């Protein structure tokens, strides 16, 4: 059976499954729509959280980031898992005890202020919308590459599927489809990884393959081999290359960790379990399901890189016949060339491919002596590493079909979670909380469904007309969540004296310095040509201690903490009933079932 028919069958079957679940798990009340009636088993919630959390970026992009950044990409591995430790110990149990529906609702009540709630809603929408655009793009790309539809058709099919189960089932429908999506995506990720690890190291467990020896009988370890292969061609040594400086890696990791703990679509998942104790164990289970993918990714990244290098450089560097002849390249090479994600240019006209680091002066000198005229792989998009991996490793077509279904599952599950966070902020925090507090349960349920429709339409619009900033969006979402939401949630629980003035000032200060630093490099609201307005004489990128814009959320969070504490010391302490509320959320006893108010 050819690849595209097979892919249609596998992807079609998973979509039917999601729709079947949606019909079975319809939501009948606002409690079911926002928090699945608080009746989700902690292990099931852990699995749904893992799917919610692992987006197209985790599934498709991360292994590629690791493949080309080596040790430097550790910031993603530690950052996107270590945040769960913070979530489990500092936020999830207390927010579950509080027992309401949304994150802004907690901020509004804890800081006895509609203003604080509104600021939180704005931060939430900014972070979630920027994040959801990336998912929509991923869906469109996966469809157009593997199902031979246009990008737009792919996007509409994806929107249609999310529409069915998110509008019908709300959190309840999303939870159970996310569980199914997790199972699809984890098989899709680990099956090729096992094959590749077996091929290269002879060990079926990728985690052991990573620290194992080559299966070619040379007795050399996989990592030493990879380091040798890349340094021979002038690239940085894989196992030691840094991302920016050490300080930048440190700060970047902090940003990703607290950004993870502060992302509202992840936090609200912990509102769905029956008890406080369940929220604690559920966070641990979520990390188990995430760790299965995250501990596999370093093996996938390193072995994909090794495979790619060995495919092109087939023998000792410098020997005339040791470079792959373009005419004899494997089929996947041509397939990906067609998509524009892989580009080859025969600079020295020898019909062979030279892939090396021509920016490295030592290597460039050597290459000249070989008669090479520059690196001929002019583009190797990191996103193709996971999608092309099964082809590069020569795996059967059904594996490729499953990988496509897995990528779609990752993008759909995250998109649905984000859309729910946006829709509930609009219907519960803005419509019920601010505009019309007397709205009936039925009216609010209708409003939440309409908000969901609106959120899907908005996401679809941005998917069709991606704004200029689409590329950097995920990192920006983390920066925003890290610098605004995480600090106020944490202080709301651990600092009884934190008051309204402090929280609002902290959020605004944190998000402002972060946005300023980002806009200074990328343009005001990412509009090209506006960056110069914010730059001063002698401005250089990453001017603040060499910290990159993606890593700056941690500095924003620090500003948030400092401003909030200073302002709260200078103003009146929170009223007694708020201090009582804080004491109440600190103990599990008395956590009821879902309560609207």
């Amino acid at each position, binding site marked *: 059976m050819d690849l595209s028919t097979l892919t249609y069958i596998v992807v079609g079957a998973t979509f039917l499954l999601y729709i079947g679940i949606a019909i079975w798990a319809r939501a009948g009340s606002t409690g079911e729509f926002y928090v699945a009636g608080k009746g989700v088993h902690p292990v099931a919630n852990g699995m749904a959280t893992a799917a919610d959390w692992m987006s197209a970026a985790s599934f498709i992009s991360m292994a590629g980031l690791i493949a080309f950044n080596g040790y430097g990409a550790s910031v993603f591995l530690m950052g996107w898992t270590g945040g769960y430790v913070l979530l489990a110990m500092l936020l999830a149990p207390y927010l579950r005890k509080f027992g309401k529906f949304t994150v802004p609702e907690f901020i509004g009540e804890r800081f006895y202020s509609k203003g604080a709630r509104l600021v939180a809603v704005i931060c939430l929408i900014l972070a979630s919308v920027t994040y959801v655009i990336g998912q929509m793009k991923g869906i469109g790309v996966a469809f157009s590459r593997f199902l031979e539809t246009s990008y737009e058709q792919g996007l509409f099919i994806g929107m249609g599927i999310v529409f069915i189960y998110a509008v019908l089932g709300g959190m309840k429908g999303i939870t159970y489809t996310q569980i199914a999506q997790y199972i699809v995506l984890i098989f899709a990720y680990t099956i090729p990884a096992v094959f590749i690890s077996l091929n290269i190291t002879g060990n079926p467990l990728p985690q052991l393959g990573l620290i194992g020896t080559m299966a070619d009988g040379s007795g050399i370890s996989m990592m030493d081999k990879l380091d040798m292969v890349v340094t021979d061609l002038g690239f940085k040594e894989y196992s*030691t290359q840094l991302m920016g400086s050490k300080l930048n890696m440190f700060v970047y990791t902090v940003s990703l960790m607290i950004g993870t703990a502060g992302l509202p679509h992840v936090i609200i998942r912990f509102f769905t379990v029956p008890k406080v104790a369940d929220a604690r164990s559920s966070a641990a289970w979520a990390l188990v399901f995430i760790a299965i993918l995250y501990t596999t990714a370093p093996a996938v990244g390193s072995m994909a890189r090794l495979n790619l290098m060995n495919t092109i450089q087939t023998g000792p560097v410098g020997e005339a016949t040791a470079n792959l002849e373009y005419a004899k390249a494997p089929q996947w090479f041509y397939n990906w060339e067609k998509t524009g994600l892989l580009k080859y240019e025969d600079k020295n006209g020898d019909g062979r491919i030279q892939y090396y680091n021509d920016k490295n002066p030592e290597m460039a000198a050597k290459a000249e002596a070989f008669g090479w005229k520059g690196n001929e792989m002019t583009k190797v998009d990191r996103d193709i590493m996971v999608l092309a991996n099964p082809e590069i490793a020569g795996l059967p077509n059904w594996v490729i079909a499953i990988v496509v279904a897995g990528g779609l599952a990752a993008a759909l599950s995250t998109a649905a979670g984000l859309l729910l966070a946006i829709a509930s902020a609009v219907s519960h925090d803005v419509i019920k909380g601010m505009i019309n507090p007397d709205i009936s349960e039925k009216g609010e349920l209708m409003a939440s469904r309409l908000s969901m429709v609106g959120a899907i339409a908005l996401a679809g619009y941005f998917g069709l007309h991606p704004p200029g900033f689409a590329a950097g969006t995920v990192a920006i979402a983390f920066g925003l969540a890290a610098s605004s939401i995480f600090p106020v949630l944490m202080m709301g629980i*651990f600092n009884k004296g934190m008051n309204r003035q402090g929280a609002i000032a902290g959020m605004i200060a944190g998000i402002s310095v972060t946005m300023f630093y980002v806009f200074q490099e990328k343009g005001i609201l990412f509009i090209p040509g506006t960056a110069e307005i914010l730059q001063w004489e002698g401005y250089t990128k990453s001017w603040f201690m060499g910290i990159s814009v993606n890593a700056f959320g941690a500095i924003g969070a620090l500003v948030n903490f400092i401003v909030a504490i200073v302002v709260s010391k200078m103003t009146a302490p929170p009223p007694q009933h708020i201090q009582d509320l804080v004491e109440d959320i600190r103990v*599990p006893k008395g956590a009821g079932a879902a309560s609207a108010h």
Partner: protein
Amino acid sequence: MDNNASKYWQANVRLVSILLVIWFVVSYGFGIILAEPLNAIKIGGVGLGFWFAQNGSIYVFLGLCFYYASQMNKLDKQFGVSED
């Protein structure tokens, strides 16, 4: 805050502080700050610093989360503040 609740909170904060120190040491400590010296020690074919940064710290995070959940259940019972 009554005496019992405040003792429960102190015990909770002490537990979380200890666990977060471990969290910091395995990721920021072993994985970033001390990565080079640790790389002199090999675990299989990779340096220990590299391994902590890409695999080891995640295993420790998992252990921390489960240990925290079970210890908190004990504290809940000990101070009589559990939900059931």
